[in-house]
């Protein structure tokens, strides 16, 4: 493919509208927050809803030209402005960005509505919605941009939104630290993309997707690999891939709707988007594919393993998110773009649902997040149970639920693209996923309520560190409770796609999904694996069954339910250090980057600057002063001494003149 075309150029007012509406909402809610008060939530939600509608309308516009035969390529491309000479900015709505836009605006809308209920009574209600809308705008910038710099702008802005929202309760030191960590790691990722842009500009002299992808053939293999790696650094940071994942669990400091929207459904999948978007690059670089696929696999496995040992309900979901994104990255990494992207699609629904479900629990338990202090909630919160159950079934890949289709597509895709090891990793991870998700479900909902048990009996050593947050006092629950439906309806709506979304993939190569993306991704010639797709599904199912069985045995049998308190304590206390410390990734990053920077900073700032450089200056000044005193010391005040100096000077003169005059002869 020597020429890469990005949709049909033209003017698409709806496209512009869908992009800018959330920005309007953000600015209005931010600027007039005190005046809007509680109206900010509905306003921002409405704007986002309008944005969703505009998405559909603009897609309609985009397909219009195909329908009338004016073009054969589905997509809308609107050039906007020349940012700086040579850096032109425009919007691109093609199947890939449409998918993301739909999730961002659609799921985003639901989460907004949910938030009206969840954030009710918070002091900074309007600010919250301003941030949320700003995030949506940033994320739309990211996915709708038609060039790498626009992508990077969006990339940075979503990081900022994420920073604001993680640190939303900025009076909590832990939230502040988590926000900063997330931001800094994400900037490290931005820097990767930035460097990729340098390389792209240096070789292609353009930042437009069209130009870049059109001239892939002219890039040398190492150069292409370098670009891919740099891009992937950005993707890894944003999508919490090993080893840049450590910010994601901490990011759960933010309000739960934030976790649902940003740290599950949309922002963290930006890495997937990037790899899928740059499919033309990756497809030409098998080494990059292997690398990305492997890292995705490792992340999937590591996330799943760490998910098994968490107690904070949101951290469990966070690790599961990390693991699922690992799947997606693995999929798009090895070249199974439809599969990876599909998993993003289904994951957005069921993970949003899981988070929102857990949000209902947290809300109901006055911000209790530790599953050890839950239990028996099935009777208290039946709706939450249903929501969580559907989510768990979907994430585990139980046939018929959405997750099964997409996950199988990814796992099978690895084999199709010739990566049997990753195939095995995918299957194994599926089993572990089933284990920890059902563990979550059982511990939370079955047995007796343990909220009144002394935390230390449950093995909770540092309640404040273990995720037992009782301090969201601003987040008052007593005053005007919003109607429960505000939180329940969005969750209820999400149940539908959580179950059904996967069916779009039904039918393999003839599925609507495959048709939709037919023009989007480069088609590789696929091997015909020894194992069929059906067999794969069965193997996965077997693993899942084993996982569920273990979870059942450990947490759900009558016996286990009765001895839950001791069980949980033993498990908490005897957790292997390597797991408790999450494979020491945090410590290693801290040592290598944070400590060393601080050491250098201290060395420069405390020693070299004041002592060595400024010391030299002071020494010079001092020696000037000393010279002054030295010169003074000749001024003894004695006339004869002065005369002596004078005569000495005369002697020098005379010697010079005598010698010079003598030399003339």
């Amino acid at each position, binding site marked *: 493919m020597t020429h890469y075309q990005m949709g049909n150029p033209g003017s698409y007012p709806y496209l512009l509208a869908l992009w800018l509406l959330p920005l309007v909402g953000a600015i209005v809610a931010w600027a007039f927050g005190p005046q809007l008060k509680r109206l900010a939530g509905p306003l921002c939600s409405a704007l986002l809803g309008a944005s969703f509608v505009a998405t559909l309308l603009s897609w309609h516009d985009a397909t219009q030209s195909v329908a009338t035969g004016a073009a054969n390529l589905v997509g809308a491309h609107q050039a906007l402005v020349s940012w700086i000479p040579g850096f032109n900015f425009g919007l691109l709505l093609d199947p890939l960005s449409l998918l993301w836009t739909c999730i961002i605006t659609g799921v985003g809308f639901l989460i907004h509505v949910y938030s009206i209920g969840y954030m009710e009574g918070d002091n900074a209600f309007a600010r919250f919605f301003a941030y949320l809308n700003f995030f949506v705008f940033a994320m739309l910038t990211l996915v709708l941009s038609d060039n790498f710099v626009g992508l990077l702008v969006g990339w940075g802005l979503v990081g900022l939104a994420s920073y604001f929202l993680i640190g939303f309760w900025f009076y909590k030191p832990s939230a502040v630290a988590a926000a900063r960590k997330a931001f800094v790691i994400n900037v490290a990722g931005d820097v990767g993309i930035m460097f990729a842009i340098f390389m792209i500009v240096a070789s292609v002299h353009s930042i437009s997707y069209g130009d870049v992808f059109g001239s892939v053939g002219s890039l040398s293999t190492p150069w292409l690999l370098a670009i891919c790696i740099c891009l992937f650094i950005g993707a890894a940071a944003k999508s919490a891939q090993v080893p840049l994942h450590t910010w994601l669990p901490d990011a759960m400091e933010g309000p739960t709707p934030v976790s649902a929207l940003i740290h599950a459904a949309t922002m963290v999948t930006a890495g997937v988007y990037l790899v899928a978007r740059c499919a033309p690059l990756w497809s030409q670089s098998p080494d990059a594919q292997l690398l990305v696929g492997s890292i995705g696999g490792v992340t999937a496995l590591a996330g799943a393993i760490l998910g098994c040992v968490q107690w904070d309900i949101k951290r469990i979901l966070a690790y599961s998110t990390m693991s699922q994104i690992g799947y997606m990255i693995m999929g798009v990494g090895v070249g199974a773009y439809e599969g990876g992207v599909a998993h993003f699609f289904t994951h957005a629904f069921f993970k949003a649902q899981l988070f929102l479900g857990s949000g209902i629990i947290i809300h109901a338990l006055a911000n209790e997040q530790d599953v050890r202090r839950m239990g028996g909630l099935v009777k208290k919160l039946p709706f939450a149970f249903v929501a969580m159950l559907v989510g768990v079934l979907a994430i585990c890949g139980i046939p018929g639920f959405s997750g099964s289709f997409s996950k199988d597509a990814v796992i099978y895709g690895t084999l199709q693209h010739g990566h049997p090891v990753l195939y095995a990793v995918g299957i194994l991870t599926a089993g572990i996923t089933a284990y920890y998700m059902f563990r979550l479900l059982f511990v939370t909902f079955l047995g007796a309520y343990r909220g009144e048990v002394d935390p230390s009996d449950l093995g909770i050593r540092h309640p404040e560190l273990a995720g037992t947050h009782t301090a969201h006092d601003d987040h008052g629950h007593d005053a005007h409770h919003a109607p429960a439906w505000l939180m329940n309806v969005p969750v209820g709506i999400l149940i539908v796609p959580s179950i059904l979304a996967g069916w779009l993939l039904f039918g393999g190569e003839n599925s609507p999904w495959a048709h939709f993306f037919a023009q989007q991704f480069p088609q590789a010639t696929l091997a015909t694996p020894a194992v069929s797709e059906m067999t794969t599904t069965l193997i996965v199912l077997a693993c899942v069954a084993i996982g569920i069985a273990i979870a059942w045995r450990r947490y759900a049998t009558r016996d286990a339910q009765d001895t839950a308190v001791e069980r949980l304590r033993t498990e908490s206390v005897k957790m292997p250090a390597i797991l408790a410390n999450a494979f020491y990734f945090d410590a290693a990053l801290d040592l290598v980057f944070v400590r060393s920077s601080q050491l250098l900073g201290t060395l420069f700032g405390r020693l070299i600057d004041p002592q060595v450089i400024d010391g030299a200056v002071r020494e010079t000044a001092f020696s*000037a002063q000393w010279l002054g005193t030295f010169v003074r010391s000749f001024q003894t005040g004695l006339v004869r001494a002065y005369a002596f100096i004078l005569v000495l000077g*005369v002697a020098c003169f005379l010697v010079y003149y005598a010698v010079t005059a003598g030399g003339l002869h």
Partner: protein
Amino acid sequence: MNPTVTNADWYALAPIAIVAIAALVVLIADLFAPKHVNRYVAIALGVIGLAAAGIDCAAAYGHDYAAFGGAFIVGGFSVVFQEIVIVAALGSIVLYGAIGNGERIAGAVALLLWSACGAMLMAGAGNLMTIFLGLELLSLALYCLCGLADRPTARESAFKYLILSSVASGFMLYGMALLFGASGSVALADFTAPALASNPLLWIGAGLFLVGISFKLSLVPFHAWSPDVYEGAPLPVTAFMSVATKAGTLAVFARFIYAALPAGIAPKLLLPIWIVAAISMIAGNVGMLAQHDLKRLLAYSGIAQVGYILAALAGGTPLGMRYAIFYLAAYTFMNLGAFAVAALLSDDGEQGSRLANYRGLAQRSPVAAAMMTLFLLALAGLPPTAGFLGKILILSTSVSTGYAWLGIALIVGTAISLYAYAKVIRAMYERNEHAHAHDAHPSVPLAWVSAAICVVVVIALTFYPLTPSNVLPLVR
């Protein structure tokens, strides 16, 4: 040599004569003037005399004439230097009005005027005798002036100046004798004979002659007298001495090196002077660093400033001459201005010019502090002052004539000096709640006026760089 003396020869001496006669008039008038106005009479007569001399002198600009067979040469060169001397004398007489002792002022004014005569004579001196005469007239009057204060330090300064200056004069005189021996003539014009270029007598004689010059210019290592004498002498005398001595001596020096040397030997012959100038730029500025007395500090500053002026002359180019004169003129006003401000603030006591008295000046007298700051900045060579432009011009000549090393010495010296000047500025702007030093003469209008004039000139010279073209020294 033309033995006949015409009227034109006498007219050439007219400015000097006017000043000398004015001195006599001052003395006579003092006998008759009532006691309570006698100081004003003396000052007024002195100012009138100097002004008349200045006007008469200016008329000679552009009319080059070698009077008395070349003994005294009038021209643009001598006019400029004489005017500088007159300005210095005017300034210091005014300062006498500000701080002087009423009973002795007539004598001091007269001596000052005679001293100025000496310096003016030097400005036009065309042979060794005139030079010696002018030099001694200048010096003898100054010895007396230095001692004209009822302080031990003043007497000490007179004594030190007397001894050391006489020794230097002795060396210079001996050098003159050798020069005479080499050339058979005392006229500067006769030293240009090519045959003299390799005459050892000329070299040694010139060396001793230059020693005398260096002493009067207070170049290191012949500078030792100047800090003590400047500190001890009455403030107006210091002001006068710091400018007039330098002006007169520079005139002699410039005439000697520009017009009185056999062709080709200047670079070698004068090398020691340039080295000494470079050392002065550094050592003078370094010497300022540890001073606690303004007059003493300005003495060291003067040592360095002369170094800068010499750097302009090093190339021996006409432009260099002009820039040296420009810088000397600028220096005259900066220095006089600084002394004028000092006179505003201190009586002429032992402690009068201690830097400690300047602490917190900005609070007590912001305008005085601002003016002093401007003069110090000008001495340091910061814009928007003539010092800045003067340094640029000097740098440009020294760079273009192959004496870049003098330019670098100038830069290094300036950098050092800045620290010292800034120290004074800092003291003035220090916020001192217990500022006890009283300002002795806070409202002497004459001193204010002279300081203000200096401010205007120092700034104006930056924007209208007067570098008169007709200033090449002549020998006949």
